[in-house]
């Protein structure tokens, strides 16, 4: 039974590790990956809840321009092992999982650095008009990435089980520590929001930020609270389309004035 779990976990991790950059680029997202890992480890329900929690933390933590955020495949695997096998609360498991997510980030950085060496092979294949050579280069890269992640996941699986007893003692003796980890786990999403603001914020958008905040508060207290974000998205689309249309119109009319065209007013 246990060996079956390990094998399935290894296969799933191998696929997720590759999927985070190619394949579907969706399966690896915590909400899906945690659900699948949860099912493998024997607790689908827990996997779902962990997935929802980790997905929120992952908002805003996207790979941009080759810069790597904490690795959420590693995060998902470790969080599921810690909750289902070790028996931690989800919120408490977030902080230790983050340590592994940072480790996963370094693994990815390492692979991306080493893979520069593959470029010579790819060039040679290109000079010889050899499509097979390009396919090989891609396969080597994916195999390295998948294998490294799989090995780490298996280590986590056994380590997480061994930690089960000491962790239980720790959480009763130092309840302030587990509570603190749990509170900071819930706070991590603010970093993601902060990153999103850093990228998109402009002087004229502060009012928009508060308007979104207010909308969520109003919908959240109403009878349609379960659809809060969908309704917020509707309003957001309306604002964005209006902004786009009016600034394009403004630009075009400014252009035609320069061209000496008169609109008759």
């Amino acid at each position: 039974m246990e060996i079956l779990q390990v094998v399935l976990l290894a296969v799933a991790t191998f696929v997720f590790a590759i999927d985070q950059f190619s394949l579907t680029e969706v399966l690896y997202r915590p909400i899906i990956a945690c659900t699948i890992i949860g099912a493998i480890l024997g607790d689908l329900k827990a996997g779902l809840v962990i997935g929802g929690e980790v997905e929120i933390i992952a908002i805003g933590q996207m790979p941009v321009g080759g810069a790597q955020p904490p690795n959420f495949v590693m995060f998902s695997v470790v969080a599921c092992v810690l909750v289902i096998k070790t028996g931690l609360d989800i919120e408490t498991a977030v902080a230790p999982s983050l340590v592994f997510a940072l480790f996963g980030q370094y693994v990815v950085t390492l692979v991306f650095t080493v893979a520069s060496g593959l470029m010579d092979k790819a060039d040679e294949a290109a000079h010889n008009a050899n499509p097979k050579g390009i396919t090989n280069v891609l396969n080597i890269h994916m195999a390295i990435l998948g294998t490294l992640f799989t090995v780490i996941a298996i280590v986590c699986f056994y380590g997480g089980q061994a930690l089960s007893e000491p962790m239980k003692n720790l959480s009763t003796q130092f309840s302030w520590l587990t509570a603190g980890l749990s509170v900071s786990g819930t706070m991590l999403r603010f970093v993601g929001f902060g990153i999103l603001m850093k990228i998109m914020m402009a002087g004229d958008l502060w009012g928009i930020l508060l308007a979104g905040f207010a909308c969520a508060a109003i919908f959240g207290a109403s009878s349609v609270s379960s659809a809060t974000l969908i309704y917020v998205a509707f309003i957001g689309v309306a604002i964005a389309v209006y902004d786009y249309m009016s600034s394009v119109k403004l630009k075009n009319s400014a252009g035609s004035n320069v061209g000496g065209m008169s609109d008759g007013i």
Partner: protein
Amino acid sequence: MASNYVLPENYKDLTPAAPLDKKTLNKMVWRSLQLQACFNYERMQSAGWLWGILPGLEKIHTNKDDLAASMTHNMDFLNTHPYLVTFVMGVVLSMEQNKSPIQTIRSVRISIAAPLGGIGDALFWYTFMPIVAGVTAGLAQDGNILGPILYFVLAFGVQMALRFWLMYWSYGMGTAAITSLTKNAKEFTHAASMMGIFVVGALIYNMGTGVQFGMEFASDASTTLGQEGGEAVGLTTNVQAQLDKILPGVVPLAMTLMCYYLLAKKGWTPIKTICLLLVIGIVGCIFGIWANGAYNALVPVPWHA
């Protein structure tokens, strides 16, 4: 031998190739998913890009030397948004088909790939995905399997629809597609940011209100009115309840603004900011400041039972 390769200025066979058939175009759309399969810091997506358009290049360049030249210059550095890459593919393939000068193809490719990267990040990574995540994560947290299923259908469905549409559109229009895409790019990015910021504002309230103060000040029984019958009625002042009367959600709002300030104005890395939050969480619980069910504060304080 490899290093001695000299890239020609033009293809040997300059007669335009026959237009690519639907089957090849579809195949390349599916292959475009592997854009980052050989990602590296030297040339980023180059090998994945070349692999994606190979079926088309093999159809276009029947001359082996031309295929080698085309494959070689398509190994150039490339970095663009994965969801929008088929737009670049369409334009480049139409130029390859017309046997444009190699340098022209190279410069057009890099000049559209880079801006598309920025637009794609703003549109998908920072606006679309957070909305999808926000809607579906709530379902998953309630233990509803629809959460991950809906996430997959939306995220994968939208990107595949885009990949197909962009491939056919830009291949059909060729380089003319570039102007119609980049003409209003600035306005488009601003509008997308506007929607993104609006959604971030909503997420702060919708997902942040779980962070609450746990401090409760017991009023001194002798000075309160609650003394009737000789028994002190437990009159307490809950800090969070008071805050919720004034401005619900003020804690997540303040903490997000703090993170924004540190990240954007102080140049902190995300990791450093995360470490600060860990300290705030743990130190806060040492002094019994945060609410988190029943726990024992390390330091005995009057406001934490």
